[in-house]
């Protein structure tokens, strides 16, 4: 991989962000927004594997996020274990749900899969919301004070930020490695034309399933990180449809099916959402989703490739403009 200056700037910026904003008045708040941003990017990158690269639009990824959020906190509530222990089990649950959904639907048209993801997400939200063992509507809490360091309870957002950043880097690496591999090519072929892919020997059903399971596992990790940082989850925050929407729009706005699209989407959306929340308070979230709906529609209609695609279309014209300017400069000097 040729290191491009864009990605160097991006990672460099992400790396120093908490340190830079610590000098600002609202430094703590900005660091917290940063952590949210990185977490949102992880979720979007995870969704991107099955929704962007493979083109299988899951509208119920909250299932996997919720699994990752609930299981670790349950490990604490039921066994007083540090939530971290529960993370791998959360992954197992998420992957199992992925198989449950994917196995019947991936041999059918794409719509069935999308419909099934919404239905199962809602099903699980209802079941969990009425199951006392899982906290019912109230939810589950994690440890209030740190007992050992691996309870991962920090006062400041900065340690969380860097843990999340590490996981994001790992997620991006996994996505990059996958995209260049046989599996990645097959995913893109499926998105580009399933029938043709099949005729070339691509095991379509199996490949989609593996993509969904990988995506589910990574989404589960995002959910776990969320639960560990916030220390609490309930059916709305862990399994609600807005969790799924957030992942989709973040990935799609930045550029579904691209490596950095989801991160770009998070960089755009999280600050905006944070701003509207502070300005409009509670009712702000309602407006946010009206806005999200509009953005998604516009994306679908005009630029489904997101910001990344837009940039790739504009970049040659920008070069032309710069070159024309340079020429007039030269002409003037001469």
């Amino acid at each position, binding site marked *: 991989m040729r290191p491009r200056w864009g990605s160097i700037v991006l990672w460099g910026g992400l790396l120093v962000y908490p340190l830079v904003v610590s000098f600002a008045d609202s430094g703590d708040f900005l660091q917290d927004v940063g952590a949210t941003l990185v977490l949102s990017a992880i979720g979007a990158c995870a969704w991107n594997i099955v*929704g*962007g690269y493979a*083109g299988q*639009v899951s*509208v119920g990824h909250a299932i996997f996020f919720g699994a990752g959020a609930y299981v670790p906190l349950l490990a604490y509530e039921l066994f007083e274990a540090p939530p971290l222990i529960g993370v791998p089990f959360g992954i197992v649950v998420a992957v199992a749900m992925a198989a*449950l959904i994917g*196995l*019947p*639907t*991936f*041999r*059918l*048209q*794409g*719509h*069935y899969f*999308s*419909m*099934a993801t*919404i*239905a*199962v997400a*809602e*099903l699980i939200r*209802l*079941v969990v919301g*009425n199951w006392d063992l899982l906290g019912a509507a109230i939810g589950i809490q994690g440890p209030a004070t740190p007992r050992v360091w691996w309870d991962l309870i920090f006062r400041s957002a900065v340690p969380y930020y860097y843990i999340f950043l590490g996981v994001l880097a790992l997620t991006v690496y996994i996505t990059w490695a996958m995209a260049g591999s046989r599996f990645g090519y097959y995913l893109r072929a499926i*998105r580009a034309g*399933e029938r043709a892919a099949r005729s070339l020997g691509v095991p*379509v059903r199996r490949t989609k399933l593996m993509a969904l399971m990988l995506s589910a596992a990574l989404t589960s990790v995002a959910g776990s990180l969320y639960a560990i940082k916030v220390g609490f989850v309930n059916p709305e925050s862990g399994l609600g*449809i807005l969790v799924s*929407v957030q992942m*989709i729009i973040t990935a*799609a706005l930045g550029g*579904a099916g691209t490596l950095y699209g989801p991160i770009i989407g998070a960089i755009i959306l999280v600050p905006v959402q944070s701003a509207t929340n502070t300005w409009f308070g509670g*009712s702000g979230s*309602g*407006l946010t*989703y*009206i806005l*999200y*709906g*509009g*953005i*998604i*529609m*516009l*994306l*679908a*209609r005009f630029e*489904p490739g997101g910001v990344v695609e837009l940039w790739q279309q504009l970049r040659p014209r920008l070069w032309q403009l710069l070159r024309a300017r340079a020429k007039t400069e030269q002409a003037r000097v001469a």
Partner: protein
Amino acid sequence: MILLQAAVGGLLLGAVYALFSSGLTLIWGMMNFINFAHGEFVMLGMYVALLVSWVNLGPEVFGPAAAVALMLLGVIVYMGLIKHVMRGPMLSQILSTFGLALLLRYSAFYIFKSDFRTLPDTALSGTLNLGGIYVSRAQLLAGLLAGVLALGMHVLLTRTALGSRLLAVAEDRNAAMLMGIHPDRMQALAWGLSAASAGIAGALMAIAYPFSPSVGETFALTAFVVVSLGGFGSVPGAMIAGFIIGLVEALAGYLIGPIYKDVIVYGLFVAVLWIRPQGLLGTGSESRS
């Protein structure tokens, strides 16, 4: 006896499900497109009825008003959005109506707040006693009208010239063009019809049941279950499945508990996908990718 009562209530609601699900499956069969905002169209029908009641017009206006308003919306959505994303990737197709659903739902939340409302009492209030079974007049009317309209849609599609033109486009777009049918116009009409069916269903339900902006999401899922059970693109299938789902929902609610009725219905959906994805009247080949 109460079981029978629950069953009757379920069938009446099922008729409404049949009506709006017929609209969804029409689009699916015709354009291979699932409208993720269909539930919101139903919800909007309810609020059109509310607005009409605010200007003191009687319940007989609710249905037609909703039909006209939603038919217009359906056509506009097709011309402005659907027509263009049809040729694009699956992602943009699904996102287009999904985004629309969000927009409509949260706009409704913003304008009307999240409380459940009912329409003011009208001549339709009150309960009838049919041989020991108590049925609210409104529910009976809603169910019967919905059933008639659903049947009417089926007749429209299968026995009129317009219907055969719509089905021709569904069958083979290019052949239809060669026969002088404008596929674009027919598809716009189908969207109008589909949205209108949702709107009328909503208006009918608003007369009989409480409603809020949140019901759109639930009805969308109900519609998905019904069309999957009924079979890809099959309007008669959607009709039968609508009644079945209405019945199952009511019986589950009575026998197990109101909280679990949705769980049973969605569980049934997953079961259908696992066991018989072509549904009741599908042939199986169309549903496969």
